[in-house]
């Protein structure tokens, strides 16, 4: 019994994983967009010098536009290449050395956040037709609080050996900027889904239709 079950899930997984050329193009271009957003100079405002950049905007948008799997792949590709040594992290930094610095938690949080917000975006697209921008905004904000800020605070605390309280306080500077960036990301995601419904909206509907039949 258990045997047939595992083969069934395996084939389902490979089917979901099979991306065509357009998917690869989208993953690559969105990874490049996150890299481009990081190259726009950021502001180092908080005490531990983690810079504020357009990156989180690009990360959230990637998830909202591409959905969970491709969003995770795009931001994961960006993170992987940055860690491998391409100078595509904020301020032109790169390399595994980043993992020793205070930004480490945020960098690790980015791919996870893109995946989580993508998963929420699929739910929003399935359930709502009106006020999608508001739901996208709420999804992005919830994700940034739960994933990005939590891991970011842990990273600061672990690498600069500060207490969680101090790390939490230094992380607070990011909230106002995050709200603005998430509003922008939600507005842009809605506009992109309107311009290119085949990227995610139709895909979700098709999926909903087939699971509905089954």
């Amino acid at each position, binding site marked *: 019994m258990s045997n047939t079950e595992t083969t069934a899930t395996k084939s389902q997984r490979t089917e979901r*994983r099979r991306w065509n050329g357009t998917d*690869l*193009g989208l993953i690559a271009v969105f990874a490049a967009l996150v890299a481009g957003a990081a190259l*726009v100079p950021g502001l180092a405002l908080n005490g*531990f010098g983690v810079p504020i950049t357009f990156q989180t905007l690009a990360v959230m948008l990637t998830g909202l536009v591409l959905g969970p799997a491709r969003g995770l792949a795009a931001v994961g590709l960006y993170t992987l290449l940055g860690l491998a040594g391409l100078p595509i992290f904020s301020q*032109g930094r*790169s*390399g595994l050395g980043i993992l020793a610095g*205070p930004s480490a938690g945020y960098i690790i949080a980015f791919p996870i956040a893109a995946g989580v917000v993508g998963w929420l975006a699929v739910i929003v697209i399935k359930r709502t037709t009106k006020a999608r921008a508001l739901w996208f905004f709420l999804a992005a904000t919830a994700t940034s609080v739960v994933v990005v800020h939590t891991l970011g605070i842990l990273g600061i605390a672990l690498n600069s050996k500060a207490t969680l309280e101090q790390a939490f306080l230094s992380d607070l500077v990011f909230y106002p900027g995050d709200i603005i960036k998430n509003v922008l990301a939600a507005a842009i995601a809605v506009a*992109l889904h309107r311009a290119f419904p085949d990227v995610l909206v139709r895909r979700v509907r098709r999926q909903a239709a087939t699971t509905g039949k089954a």
Partner: protein
Amino acid sequence: MRGHGFLLANYVPGTSLLHRSPLALKFLLVLACGLASFIIVDWRLSAAVLAVLCGLFLLTGAGVKRLWGAVRPLVPVLLVVGLFQGWQLGAPTGARIVLNILVCIVAASLLTATTPVQQLLDGVVQLARPFERFGADPERFALTIGIMLRSIPYIAGTFADVRDSARARGLDRNPRALVLPVFITSVAYARQTGEALAARGLGEAED
């Protein structure tokens, strides 16, 4: 940002011992330094490791300027961390924390300074090979990396163009007018790339 100049940012050509040692070995060195920063508890030992790594860096012929360039963005942060932790936990502990971060940074720049970007990327693709049995496809992975690298200068160029046209319409303070066209152009570009790949029979998963 037009062109691929940024890809050469870190590499320094040379024939030193580190240039010749295999990528896996250098990667292990960086990994070991990362682990050491959790294990070493004496600042003098950290300082010694840092001195050895700086010596290795200078031996590669990359020069003091590049070494400083790798460390410089972190100097203000390290100053804050060092002073704060020195005040809270005592000077030796503060020094140890700062030195350990520096050890990791210098080790990572050693890797990027002595390895051409192409070799680094090949290394990343190699890392995907063990996952082949789980459905990963190194060829398609490499293809995606290639498309991404080609897209970065294109997107940076698009951003400059969009900013110019927004300014011409007097919209250079409207963030939506500044950012949305960049994303629209980028998605259109991604789909064109996908169609071009399909037309050449590239990027399709093998059945």
